[in-house]
C-alpha cells in the first residue's frame, strides 16, 4: 500500500530541483535531456500505478501515450481545433483506450495480461504505422505549440518549456499519489494481493481494475501531450512496444510500487544513456548490467533499496530504544 512518507516527498523535491538546475545551468541539449526524462518519468509513474500497485504489468503504455499524442495532433493539426480542447480530447482518447484494454483484460493475470496488452499495443502501433492520412511511418508534423503568452510564458523558450514540463511531472505524481492513498488505490493493492477475498468483501474487482487502467491512461496521456508539444512532431515510434518496455525497465530500476522510484529510474536511465554513449555504442549493455544487479539485489530498485535500508535502520533503532512501532509502516512495500 502506498504512503506518501517524508522520505518520498524529500526525494521527489530533490529530484525536481536537480532536474531544474540541470536544465537552467546546462545547454539547450541539457534541456532536451530533461524533457526526455520528464516524458519517461510520467509514463513510468503511470505504469507503476498498474504494475506496482495493481500487479498489471502492461506492455501497452507506450501505445496509450501515443494514442493521446495522435488524438491531440489529429484534432489540432488535421481538424484545426484549438489546442486546449484538442489536448482534452487527447487525454480522453488515452483514458478510453486504456479503460477498454483494462476492461477486456480484467480477468487475466500474469503472463496472459502481459501478452494481451502487448497485442493491444502492437495493434495500435500498426494502425498508426499503416495510416497514410496520419503520415504512416513518416509520422506527423504540423503541430503548433501552446501559446501561453497571455500569462507571460514563452513556450518556444526551451527553459520555460522544461519548467512547465517539470510542473506537469509534479502534477502527474501528485494526482497518482493522491489516488494511490485513497480507498480506490488501496483497494487496487488489495486486489493485487488477494483478488478473491476482495470479491468476498463486495468489491467488483474487474471494474476496479479497468478503472485503474483508465486513470493510468490519463497519466500516460499527459506524457503523450508533452511528447507532441516538445518536438511538434509525432511518429508511430511512440507506440512501439519497446517504449513500454523502456518504461518498465525504469520502474524496476527505480523501485516498483513506490511512485518516486520511477522518477529516479528515469533520471538514471536517461543520464546513463547520454553519458555512456559518449564513450561507447554499447551503453545498453551497461544499463543491462545495472538492471541485473538491481534485480539480484532484491528487486527493490535503486530508490526502493535505499528506502528499505532506511526502514531497517529505523526499526533497529526503534527496537533498541524499546519503542512501540506504532503508526503506519514507512513504505517500501510492494503491494
Amino acid at each position, binding site marked *: 500500500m502506498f504512503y506518501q512518507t517524508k522520505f518520498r516527498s524529500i526525494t521527489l523535491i530533490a529530484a525536481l530541483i536537480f532536474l531544474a538546475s540541470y536544465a537552467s545551468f546546462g545547454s539547450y541539449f541539457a534541456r532536451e535531456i530533461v524533457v526526455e526524462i520528464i516524458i519517461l518519468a510520467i509514463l513510468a509513474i503511470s505504469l507503476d500505478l498498474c504494475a506496482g500497485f495493481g500487479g498489471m504489468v502492461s506492455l501497452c503504455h507506450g501505445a496509450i501515450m501515443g494514442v493521446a499524442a495522435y488524438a491531440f495532433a489529429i484534432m489540432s493539426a488535421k481538424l484545426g481545433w484549438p489546442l486546449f480542447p484538442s489536448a482534452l480530447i487527447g487525454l480522453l482518447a488515452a483514458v478510453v483506450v486504456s479503460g477498454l484494454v483494462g476492461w477486456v483484460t480484467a480477468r487475466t493475470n500474469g503472463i496472459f495480461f502481459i501478452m494481451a496488452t502487448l497485442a493491444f499495443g502492437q495493434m495500435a502501433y500498426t494502425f498508426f504505422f499503416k495510416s497514410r492520412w496520419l503520415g504512416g511511418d513518416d509520422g506527423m508534423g504540423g503541430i503548433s505549440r501552446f501559446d501561453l503568452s497571455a500569462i507571460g510564458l514563452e513556450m518556444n523558450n526551451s527553459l520555460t518549456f522544461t519548467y512547465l514540463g517539470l510542473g506537469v511531472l509534479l502534477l502527474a505524481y501528485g494526482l497518482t499519489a493522491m489516488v494511490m492513498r485513497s*480507498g480506490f488505490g488501496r483497494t487496487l493493492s488489495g486486489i493485487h*494481493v488477494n483478488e478473491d477475498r476482495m470479491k468476498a*468483501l*463486495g468489491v467488483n474487482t474487474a471494474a476496479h481494475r479497468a478503472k485503474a487502467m483508465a486513470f493510468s491512461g490519463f497519466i500516460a496521456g499527459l506524457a503523450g501531450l508533452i511528447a507532441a508539444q516538445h518536438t511538434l512532431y509525432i511518429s508511430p515510434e511512440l507506440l512501439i512496444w519497446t517504449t513500454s518496455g523502456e518504461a518498465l525497465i525504469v520502474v524496476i530500476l527505480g523501485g516498483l510500487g513506490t511512485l518516486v522510484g520511477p522518477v529516479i529510474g528515469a533520471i538514471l536511465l536517461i543520464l546513463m544513456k547520454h553519458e555512456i554513449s559518449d564513450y561507447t555504442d554499447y551503453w545498453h549493455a551497461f544499463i543491462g548490467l545495472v538492471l541485473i544487479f538491481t534485480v539480484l539485489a532484491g528487486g527493490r530498485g535503486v530508490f526502493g533499496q535505499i528506502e528499505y535500508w532506511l526502514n531497517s535502520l529505523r526499526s533497529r533503532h526503534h527496537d533498541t530504544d524499546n519503542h512501540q512501532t506504532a503508526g*503506519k509502516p514507512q513504505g517500501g512495500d510492494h503491494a
Partner: protein
Amino acid sequence: MLEVKGLSKDFGGLHVIRDLSLSVTAGERRVILGPNGAGKTTLFHLLAGTLKPSKGEIFLDGQPIKAFDAVKRARLGIARSYQKNNLFETLTIRENLMLAAAAALGKSTHMVKDSSRHPDIRQRIDEIAEQVSLADQLDQTVGTASYGNRRQLEVGLALATRPKLLLMDEPTSGVGPTMIDRFHRLLEQLPRDITVLIIEHDMDLAFGVADRITVLNFGEKVFEGTPEDTRGNATVRDIYLGTGGYHA
C-alpha cells in the same frame, strides 16, 4: 431470514449437496455439523455465491439471490470467514481491516481522500480490532503474524463489513483451547442483528453457541434440532459422533 429450498450441487456424477432445505430466522446462531466430506463448506460456497447450485433456490430476506454473483451477495450483507486463512498476506493487520472497512463503508471507489486517515474507517478498524482481540497487533504484517492472530483476523475481515448474515467456516480450526474460549466469548458478544451460520468441530463451542443445529451427511440433511435434541439423537451419534462419544 435465510431460506434454502431444494438445493443441490453435483460435480460430475458426485452429488455433494442433495435436495437441501434450510430455514434460518433472523439473529439465529445455526451450527452446521457433519463429518468430513458432508458438504458443509460446499454449502457455504453456494450461499456466498462462489459456486453455482445445480438445482434449488436461495432467498435472503425473501429475495431470490441464486442469480447473484459473490460480489453482489457480499453487498447484500453476506460475509464469510474461511476454513483456510484467506487474507492479504503482505499487508499489515490494520491494512487488512482497512480494506474490509473501506469496502463496507462504500469508500473503496473514492479517489481523493487518504483512506488510512478517514475517521469512519479508523473507527471501524479500532472496533473490529477490539472485538477480535487484535488491537495490539495492528501494525504487524499478516505473513509474520501468529496462526492464532491470523484466525482472529479471518473473522475480523468478515465482521468488518457489518454483515447481516455471517458464514463462519471452522473459525477455531487448528487453534488451542485459549483461543477457542476467546471465539466462544466473541460469538456470545456478537449483536443479535447478525445471523450466524457456523461450521464447527469443537463440540463444547458448537453446543454452547447454537440455537439450532443442522447435521449433514453425504450432502443430505439428516437431522435438525436444538442442541439438547441433537445430543440425544441416536442417528446423529451414529453418523457424526461415532459410537465412542463426543469426539470430533
